[in-house]
């Protein structure tokens, strides 16, 4: 498994990266951790004549927590997210989800930016970012814009990002809500058969806010507003969860693969979502 030849660029700033993108358009791709892109290149399923390695761009690394706002540089690795105690204190669901991604080696290299920008429906962070209502900062040659995670994903590997833009940062509000990232996979290193991110806040014994998103159950991550709405105002009792799960299942469209047929995935999705809700509620 050897990739086709390419030109390699390692700019030290965003402007340098953007200029290569501007010059080569479709023929150029940015490289973050590389653990999705490089295997695709080796299998010759991704043709990348111009590869732009972002690792030297200092501004893309690290996490800042400013008041209630968390900003994570796109090149921050899963390993760094897991080991960031301040981030854990501000938004514990990140660690819980990141620990369930791939395996230790992949988490040392895999970045949050690569995970969300690639548009792979198997990736875990997109659903989580929708759950958190995160925003993605996209920088282009002549403009910087912010796109909501909830409107970023169009189809498998197709996103709102233009070819000439780079996703540089992710921002979202700190969350002390009850949380859970529930994922079933065949083994360590596999994508989810079904996964769900849930955040719930509780006021006076009742659900005051809820957010429910799902991974690898459609060709894009899915946020189910109807499911969340079904919980708000309830005591998160069995009946309410049942309505929420039914609503969530209305919003997904899994496909058959080696992990199983659609009927199994629909059933499993219901179980995983309800478990995520139960765990998030227990922590609310």
């Amino acid at each position, binding site marked *: 498994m050897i*990739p086709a030849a390419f030109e390699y660029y390692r700019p030290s700033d965003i402007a340098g990266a953007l200029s290569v993108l501007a010059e080569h358009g479709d023929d150029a791709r940015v490289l973050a951790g590389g653990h999705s892109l490089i295997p695709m290149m080796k299998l010759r399923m991704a043709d990348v004549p111009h590869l732009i390695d972002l690792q030297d761009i200092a501004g893309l690394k690290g996490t800042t927590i400013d008041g209630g706002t968390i900003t994570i540089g796109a090149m921050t690795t899963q390993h760094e997210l897991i080991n960031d105690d301040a981030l854990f204190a501000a938004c514990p669901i990140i660690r819980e989800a990141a620990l369930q991604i791939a395996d230790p080696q992949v988490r040392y290299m895999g970045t949050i930016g690569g995970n969300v920008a690639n548009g792979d429906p198997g990736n875990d962070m997109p659903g989580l970012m929708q759950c958190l209502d995160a925003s993605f900062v996209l920088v282009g040659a002549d403009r910087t814009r912010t796109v909501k995670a909830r409107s970023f994903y169009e189809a498998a590997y197709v996103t709102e990002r233009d070819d000439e833009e780079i996703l540089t940062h992710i921002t979202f509000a700190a969350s002390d809500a009850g949380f859970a990232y529930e994922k079933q996979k065949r083994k360590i290193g596999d994508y989810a058969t079904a996964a769900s991110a849930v955040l719930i806040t509780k006021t006076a014994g009742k659900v005051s806010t809820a957010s429910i998103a799902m991974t690898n159950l459609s060709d894009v991550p899915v946020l189910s507003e109807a499911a969340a709405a079904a919980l708000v105002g309830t005591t998160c009792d069995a009946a309410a969860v049942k309505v929420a799960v039914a609503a969530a299942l209305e919003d997904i469209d899994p496909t058959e693969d080696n992990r199983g047929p659609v009927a199994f995935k629909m059933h499993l999705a219901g179980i995983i979502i309800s478990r995520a809700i139960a765990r998030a509620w227990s922590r609310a």
Partner: protein
Amino acid sequence: MTKQIVSMTVNGEKKEVLAEPRELLIYVLREKMGMKGPHVGCETSHCGACTVEIDGKSVKSCTMFAAQAQGAQITTIEGLGSPDNLHVLQENFKEHHGLQCGYCTPGMITRAHRLLIENPNPTEEDIRFGIAGNICRCTGYQNIVKSILSAAAEINAAKEAAQ
């Protein structure tokens, strides 16, 4: 495509090679630098046989271009011990039958090395989770886990004795 000079520090020695950008780090280490300990197993970053340590991270070197490692500090199994002075992990893998065919072993030990730096007192569960990026087809892992637990205890005992 044009070859470039790539330089990195491997097991404490500065190395320079001429490589095409698409050359994978594993092949450059094995074929241009003589570090044949890391092996190629799956080529899709699932098996971990190619694991090396780069700037304090355990990395699957089949999923990294050598060019990405420009300027990096790399440790391979060859850098962990010498024939006259084996690393405590190497000793314990021998002692507890933590290997059979030996093909996964360099990657496994290199990964375990990093794991113990970050978590000097791992539980069995920590070890199983921490080496889950390394597949072994022979041992069933039980003796690998035993080897790493024993190495951790030995390292900690040595540290205590030194204090």
